[in-house]
């Protein structure tokens, strides 16, 4: 089922250069889509357009069979959540508890149900022991997990991650990734759009969209994209480690037949 359909999306901040230039794709229920590309390729702008923080051109975004316009905005936002890059600048409440409650208050969830919901979703991101902590006493990874809990508590169908791990240390990155994996396992119908620089993450998702200067240069499953090295040259995006390794090996005249995993490649090299 198609949850979001984007059709010929165009956006410009200054009415001269199109930051997003004719982008079309769709988000199906339960899919994990990665959007990669350099800074300035229009990735984050697309995220803001999808959630209606920037105004898209008419009839370009359709979500849950509704046009994305001022009238439907509220209804659409109830079903799409977003986690931004900077952990500090999306922590609204003065404690973890208050921050998760913030979205619930906006949703007009009755007071007596809030504590249960907060506890449930704090537990899902492993933050139950930190409910009364202030943001200044939390690490970046913990704050991002609180942001995820706040969004999960609103029970969305689609979650957008806008470079949500790029400001975190390796430990924080790992924690956030584990939380994402867990929530996918618990709710297989949840769709994820992840805007990322992390190639290992991008190429483990269901679908990769490669952006360059506001245009989509490739939109396919990871295997197919990796078979077209032209895409990487054109967009300047790096290859994942394994593929870089394979390319260098074949340049040195070493051909590997079974390139399923790093272990297999090593086995073949040592044969």
């Amino acid at each position, binding site marked *: 089922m198609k949850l979001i359909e984007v059709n010929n999306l165009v956006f410009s901040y200054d009415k001269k250069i199109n930051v997003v230039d004719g982008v079309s794709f769709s988000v199906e229920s339960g899919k994990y889509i990665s959007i990669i590309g*350099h*800074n*300035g390729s229009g990735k984050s702008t697309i995220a803001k357009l999808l959630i209606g923080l920037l105004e898209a051109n008419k009839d370009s975004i359709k979500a849950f069979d509704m046009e994305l316009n001022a009238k439907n905005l509220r209804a659409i936002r109830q079903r799409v959540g977003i986690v931004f*890059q900077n952990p500090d600048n999306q922590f609204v409440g003065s404690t973890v508890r208050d921050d998760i409650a913030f979205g619930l208050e906006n949703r007009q969830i009755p007071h007596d149900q809030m504590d249960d919901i907060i506890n449930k979703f704090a537990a899902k991101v492993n933050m139950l022991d930190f409910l009364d902590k202030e943001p200044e006493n939390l*690490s*970046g990874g913990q704050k991002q997990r609180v942001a995820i809990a706040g969004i999960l508590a609103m029970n969305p169908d689609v979650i957008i991650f806008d470079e949500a791990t*790029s*400001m975190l*240390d*390796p*430990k*924080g990155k790992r924690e956030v990734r584990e939380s994402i994996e867990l929530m996918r396992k618990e709710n297989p119908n949840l769709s994820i759009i992840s805007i990322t*620089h992390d190639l290992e993450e991008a190429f483990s998702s269901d679908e990769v969209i490669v952006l360059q200067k506001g245009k989509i240069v490739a939109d396919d499953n990871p295997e197919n994209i990796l078979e077209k090295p032209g895409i990487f040259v054109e967009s*300047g*995006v*790096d290859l994942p*480690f394994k593929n*870089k*390794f394979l390319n*260098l*090996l074949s*340049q*040195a*005249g*070493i051909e590997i037949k079974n390139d399923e995993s*790093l*272990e297999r490649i*090593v*086995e073949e*090299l*040592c044969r």
Partner: protein
Amino acid sequence: MSINFKNVFYTYSEKTPFRHEALKDVSLTINDGSFTCIVGHTGCGKSTLIQQLNGLLIPTLGSVDVNGYHIEKKSKSLKKLHDLRKEVGVVFQFSEYQLFEETIEEDVAFGPINFGVKKEEAIKIAHECLETVGIPESYYKKSPFEISGGEKRRVAIAGILALQPKILVLDEPTAGLDPRGTKYILDLFKELNKQGTTIVFVTHDINIVYEYATDVIVMNEGKVVMQTVPEKLFAEDVEQYSLETPLIQKTVNLLLAKGMKLDVSKIHSLEDLVKEIARVRK
């Protein structure tokens, strides 16, 4: 002439309930001309450590020697610290937030002017440094607030390079940059290092240590766990220091385990590894 820490302790907010011991008995040496990486996870004291290098923080106990300057609690002479800051340039995390002047060239010239360089001379130095970091000439008169994030970062770095420091200290200079921006400035630091600048580089990214470092210091909970060369560090299981194993090292380990006789000392990048494999297979 090098950096020497002798039993350095540093405590924040001493004698208050918020007391926090950030450095505990740190002794280390950073050699001239080295590319030293300091690794360890958040809160291990890395950032506190580098602030001792140009006297932003003075050790609570112990002493630090930097290029002939002796920093100790008792001998706190401000005039001397001012001179020290010209020799040790520190680029902080998210350094783009230090930009404030009307034009990019003026912002880069700000540092040298503070150290008594005449304005025209400082602007000249600024132009050179902007060229070094790859900012085109057409930008010099632009406002630093109308350029992209990656460019801002480079202008901020140029602002420190303009002090012409002998030691360059960098706190996570690649955080939040895209892969292309990261590679660009890493290569820049490598080049500066070749020209003789000592680089002290604080990072979470173990791959940077693998590819760029000549020396490495591992920290944990305010203590130096290990001071060594990268080859020795990666010969051990780095996960015991809660660091990740770089993917190249993982591959090397797998190959070694399978009995391939690689000369590890020659491997600093993926290209080196492939060359080694080709050599061994012949």
